[in-house]
């Protein structure tokens, strides 16, 4: 069987992949469980080599049920949905490259990736924390509504698209490097902080259409951006003291996580991008009272 439109391309975490091995022997669950051992520190270690995402996630869920507090996964190679449906504040170390949708719909866990992450990190995430010691792909934190994501290096396009907040659920995304186009598109709430650490002196951010359609939340950017890089719906202001507090608090955490020099970041200037209106498209419609 050929997966529709994909054929033989590399789809390591695809349901098709591993079907052959899963079927027939009927022992894959057992096989997967055998890969687990406990080291002296009490951290459970899972070897993900050769496991499909479904097998890996099943093993993780089984450990959560067995009240594991911390899990380290070795040899992660493209398995998707790690952290989805764990629903408790477990700590998961991921060594290798996790697949897309890392922490999708996640509610509670803390994921730390020692490597790069792919697309859709923290997709529609409810709570918890994702830390990536590397870069992440497109659409990071889409529709995220709580918790925090820290990416050490750059992110792809459409980061924090349609991020939301309500009440005390205020999501936070901190990007150490820079972001690509459409950062904060349609953003409805939450906080995005871009530190621009990888930029050379004098080099500005390159993202365009920043904050297009933004109607809530706040983006803080360290480093320069030109007016033409902004979406029409945002304006640039200076952060006030409360904003500074938010930034410093997040930066402190970032520096602790990645061992970055706090003072260097703390003493630099941040720009605040702020939506011009909570109703960006209110005037698009011929919305007079009918007939009058």
């Amino acid at each position: 069987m050929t997966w529709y439109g994909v054929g033989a391309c590399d789809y390591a975490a695809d349901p098709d992949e591993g079907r052959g091995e899963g079927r027939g022997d009927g022992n894959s669950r057992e096989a997967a469980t055998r890969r687990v051992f406990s080291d002296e520190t009490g951290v459970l270690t899972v070897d993900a080599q050769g496991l499909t995402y479904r097998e890996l996630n099943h093993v993780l869920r089984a450990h959560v049920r067995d009240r594991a507090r911390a899990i380290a996964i070795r040899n992660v190679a493209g398995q998707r949905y790690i952290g989805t449906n764990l629903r408790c504040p477990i700590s998961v170390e991921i060594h290798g490259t996790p697949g897309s949708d890392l922490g999708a719909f996640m509610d509670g866990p803390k994921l730390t990736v020692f490597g790069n992450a792919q697309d859709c990190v923290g997709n529609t995430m409810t709570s918890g924390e994702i830390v990536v010691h590397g870069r992440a792909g497109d659409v990071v934190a889409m529709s995220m509504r709580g918790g925090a994501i820290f990416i050490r290096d750059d992110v792809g396009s459409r980061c924090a698209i349609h991020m939301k907040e309500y009440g005390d659920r205020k999501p936070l995304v901190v990007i150490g490097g820079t972001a690509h186009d459409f950062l904060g598109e349609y953003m409805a709430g939450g906080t995005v902080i871009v530190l621009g650490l990888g930029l050379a002196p004098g080099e500005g951010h390159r993202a365009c259409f920043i904050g297009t359609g933004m109607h809530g939340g706040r983006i803080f950017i360290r480093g320069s951006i030109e007016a033409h890089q902004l979406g029409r719906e945002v304006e640039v202001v200076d952060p006030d003291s409360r904003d500074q507090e938010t930034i410093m608090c997040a930066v402190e955490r970032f520096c602790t996580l990645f061992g970055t020099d706090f003072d260097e970041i703390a003493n630099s200037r941040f720009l605040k991008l702020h939506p011009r209106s909570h109703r960006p498209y209110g005037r698009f419609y011929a919305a007079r009272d009918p007939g009058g």
Partner: protein
Amino acid sequence: MKSYIPPQFTVERDDRRCNMCRICIEECSFGVHYYDEKRKTMGAREERCVGCHRCSAFCPTRALTIRTHPAEFRPNANWRPEFILDIKKQAETGGIVLTGMGCDKPYRIYWDHLVLNASQVTNPSIDPLREPMELRTYLGRRPDRLELTDDREGGRPAARLAGRPGGFDLPDVPPDGASSAPSPVKVEVPILLAAMSFGAVSFQVHKALMQAAQEIGTLCNTGEGGWPAELRGFGRHVIVQCASGRFGVDADYLNEAAIVEIKIGQGAKPGIGGHLPGEKVTEAVARTRMIPPGTDALSPAPQHDIYSIEDLAMLIYALKEATNYEKPVAVKIAAVHNAAAIASGIVRAGADIVVLDGFRGGTGAAPKIIRDNVGIPIELALASVDARLRAEGIRHEASIIASGGFRNSADVLKAIALGADAVYIGTAALIAMGCTLCQQCYTGKCAWGIAASDPKLTERLDPDVAARRVVNLINGWSLEIKEMLGGMGINAIESLRGNRLHLRGIGLEDWELEVLGVRGAGT
């Protein structure tokens, strides 16, 4: 700017009957009726009248009649009044003309050109009053085959259901011993209540629909505006939507429902997103959608994690992971030109249910130009999707739910004969509650308290009474469906599913008969 838009309706007040009780003033949310203190008479600002008939329905002396306004422009086949009015409206505002409910244009309605069969002599018809008649329907993926293995040690053969990936044959790590594929969801009638979001319709409407679904034993779709906390108890009868705005979507939302539906498109506005205006985002709506009160609730046109069938597969399996592979995942698309090929991709991406929404499907707000010009009729989309999935041998891998403008039980039955497993009704359910199709849903002023958020209006609708009306409607349709089935000599709706020999076309071109897969009447 003076408005040149003439009144659409005229208010006729019979002064012999009117006792000036002023109930009409109270009832009209558009401010048409007034009492003239000086002249001691009742008056009407006709230019505000939308023809919703709330006042005439509640006038205790039946003194009010609302008619289409008799004033006419010079007749012109090209410049019809609708176009003239829209131009005037846009000249005065510079905006997109909005509307509510489904497409009202006179495109061919194929239901009216399809007729059902009945038994005569060669096989007996069945009287549903005396004999059992089965409308129960199961929604979700079916296995490919039953595999029997000879289990020598146990002394008897073992059976297992087997199928393609996405279903029964996924890597065999069944969570907690459960089957790798979700069990199909049972509904007692093949009529489901369509997606209408909280915010577009009131809390009372949401509650009434869920109560009705529970009483009938069917399913109600939350729409994309979240699922109010007070209504979580109806979970077994609820389909939750995961749409581009992801409003109110969290792990509990997904896990407490019976089915998770990914909304890609909507028949009334294929290809575009939606904007719930900030003034409708009340505290309760904001809490349910998980956004700040008073902000526009924007649903982007695409889901930005889905740019391809492969991406769709990724979201389908994200939702399956998030729900422990226990819930069927549905994918809803608007009926568009390539629906058959798209539906094939959806099934191959792992969806357990495909939902097709035709261009007469309703909406709380859509640009009129999109509603009236984009998409195709559900009849043609349904027939072509069913035929395509059959031709590819994957029809059993997903159920098909058809949606978009079902007006009566015959439409439902014809859809099932064309290949649908079940249908969604939205507009019909709202009409049962009081809606008169005045198409003002987007104004938030619905005088019937349906598409409203203002408590003064929403309290007009008693959820218990509204639920009763919807239950009565579906019970009535069920009786009619049983009568029609019985007449065909069929005692289970399953036997009619995709059975196009029970349909004939009247007044249709050859290409239409071909797409529908039915023969002309008399042949």
